[in-house]
C-alpha cells in the first residue's frame, strides 16, 4: 500500500518562472552599498515567493500587506529601490501592471474644501494595479494647522490601503526623523505598513564608486589625479550642510563636466583627441567652491 505522494512545490521553479532572481541581482549590481536595504528586500522577496508556493498547494492565506516605508537621507536611493520593488512585486504577481506613480503632497492635497478627496482619488485610481510612491510623505500631516487638508488625504489613503490591498501597494518615503514623527501622530498609518526599511548614508568609498559609475555611464572618466582630487572633494563636501549623498555626487560631477567643457573650449586652437573629450582633469574638480573654504 502506497500512501499518495504528498504534493510538492518547487521554489526553484517559481523563482525561475518569475525571473525575480534577475531583478535582485540587478539591484545588487546596480546599487553600490546599501547592504541592509538589499537584505530586507531579499527577505521580502523570499517571503513573497514562499507565499506563492503556499498558494499553489492551496494553503490560502490573506494577501500579505505589502505597504512599505522607506526612510533615509536625501540621495540614498529610495526612488531607485522603489522602482525595483515594483518590478519584483509585478513579477511575483502581487501587482498587476507594475507601474510606479510618484507623487508628493501637491498631487494629493487640494487647495480648498472639497478639492482634496477627488484629487487624492484620482491619483489612487491612476496608481491602481501598480505602486504609489509618496515622496516626503510627512508633509501630508501638518499639526500646526488643524484645518489643513492633508488629514483628509491621509484618511482616504488609509481607507484604500486597507480595502484595496490587492489593487495597489503604497510606499511612503522621507527623512527618518520626520517620518517617525509622522507615524507617531498617525498610528493608523504606521500599523498598516508592514515593512519599514531604513536607508543608511553612503560611506566615502561607496560615494567614490558611485561617482565612477555615473561617469562611466556618460562615457567620461577621471583623468590623472582627478580621482584623488574627487576623494578630497568628498571629504570636504561631506562636512558641509545639505550634503545629499549620491545626488550631491551627481551635481558635483555635472559641474566638473561643465568646467571640463569650458577648459577645452578655451584651448580650441588645438586638435582634440578622444581622451581629451572623455577625461575629467584634477583641475576641473579642484576649481570647486568647496576647496575655497578652510577645512573645519
Amino acid at each position, binding site marked *: 500500500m502506497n500512501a499518495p505522494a504528498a504534493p510538492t512545490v518547487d521554489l526553484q521553479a517559481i523563482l525561475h518562472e518569475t525571473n525575480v532572481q534577475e531583478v535582485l541581482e540587478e539591484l545588487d549590481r546596480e546599487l553600490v552599498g546599501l547592504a541592509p536595504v538589499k537584505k530586507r528586500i531579499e527577505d521580502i522577496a523570499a517571503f513573497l515567493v514562499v507565499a506563492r508556493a503556499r498558494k499553489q498547494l492551496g494553503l490560502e492565506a490573506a494577501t500579505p500587506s505589502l505597504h512599505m516605508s522607506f526612510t533615509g537621507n536625501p540621495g540614498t536611493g529610495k526612488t531607485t529601490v522603489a522602482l525595483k520593488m515594483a518590478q519584483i512585486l509585478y513579477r511575483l504577481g502581487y501587482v*498587476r*501592471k507594475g*507601474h510606479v506613480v510618484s507623487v508628493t503632497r501637491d498631487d494629493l492635497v487640494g487647495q480648498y474644501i472639497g478639492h482634496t478627496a*477627488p484629487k487624492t482619488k*484620482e491619483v*489612487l*485610481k*491612476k496608481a*491602481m*494595479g*501598480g505602486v504609489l510612491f509618496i515622496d516626503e510623505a510627512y508633509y501630508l500631516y501638518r499639526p500646526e494647522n488643524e484645518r489643513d487638508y492633508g488629514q483628509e488625504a491621509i484618511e482616504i489613503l488609509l481607507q484604500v490601503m486597507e480595502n*484595496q490591498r*490587492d*489593487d*495597489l501597494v503604497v510606499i511612503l518615503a522621507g527623512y527618518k526623523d520626520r517620518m517617525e514623527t509622522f507615524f507617531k501622530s498617525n498610528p493608523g498609518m504606521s500599523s498598516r505598513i508592514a515593512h519599514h526599511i531604513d536607508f543608511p548614508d553612503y560611506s566615502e568609498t561607496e560615494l567614490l564608486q558611485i561617482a565612477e559609475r555615473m561617469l562611466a555611464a556618460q562615457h567620461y572618466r577621471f583623468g590623472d589625479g582627478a580621482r584623488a582630487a574627487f576623494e578630497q572633494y568628498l571629504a570636504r563636501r561631506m562636512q558641509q550642510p545639505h550634503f545629499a549623498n549620491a545626488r550631491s555626487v551627481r551635481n558635483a560631477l555635472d559641474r566638473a563636466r561643465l568646467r571640463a567643457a569650458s577648459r577645452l573650449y578655451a584651448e580650441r586652437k588645438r586638435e582634440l583627441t578622444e581622451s581629451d573629450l572623455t577625461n575629467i582633469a584634477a583641475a576641473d574638480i579642484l576649481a570647486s567652491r568647496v576647496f575655497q573654504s578652510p577645512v573645519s
Partner: protein
Amino acid sequence: MRITQGTFSFLPDLTDDEIRAQVDYALSQGWALSVEYTDDPHPRNVYWEMWGLPMFTIKDGAAVLYEVNACRKAFPNHYIKVNAFDNTRGVESMCLSFIVSRPADEPGFCLQRQEAAGRMQRYSTRGYAADKPAGQRY
C-alpha cells in the same frame, strides 16, 4: 420589465468579475472609461448623469470597479452604466457601453396612443416611474 439597452443587456446581469474583464479589455484597447447613472432610462435619454470625470489616465480596471461601487453606494436604486470612449483622432466616439447596475424593481413603460387628425395614430412611450419627480423614481 427589464430594460435592455447597451451591450450585453439581453444577458443575465454581469458579475463584478465579468465587468472587470470587459473593463480590462477596453483598457487594453486604449479606451477611456466613464461611469454614468440615471433614474430616467427612457431610450431617448442618451445623456445620463456623469459620475466623476472620464478616466483617461488609469492603467488598471480596479479603478473603474472602485468608482462603480462608489456610485452603487450613492445610488443603490438607479441605473448605472460603464462607457468606453475611443479618443483616437477620427474615431472619437463611444465604443462600448453596458449597464452594470439597475433598480430592484423596474415598472417598465406605457405605450401611449394619441388620436391625431384624420384617424391618424401617434405613439409614444413613457416610463411608469417617470410619473414621480426625479430622485424619487425607483
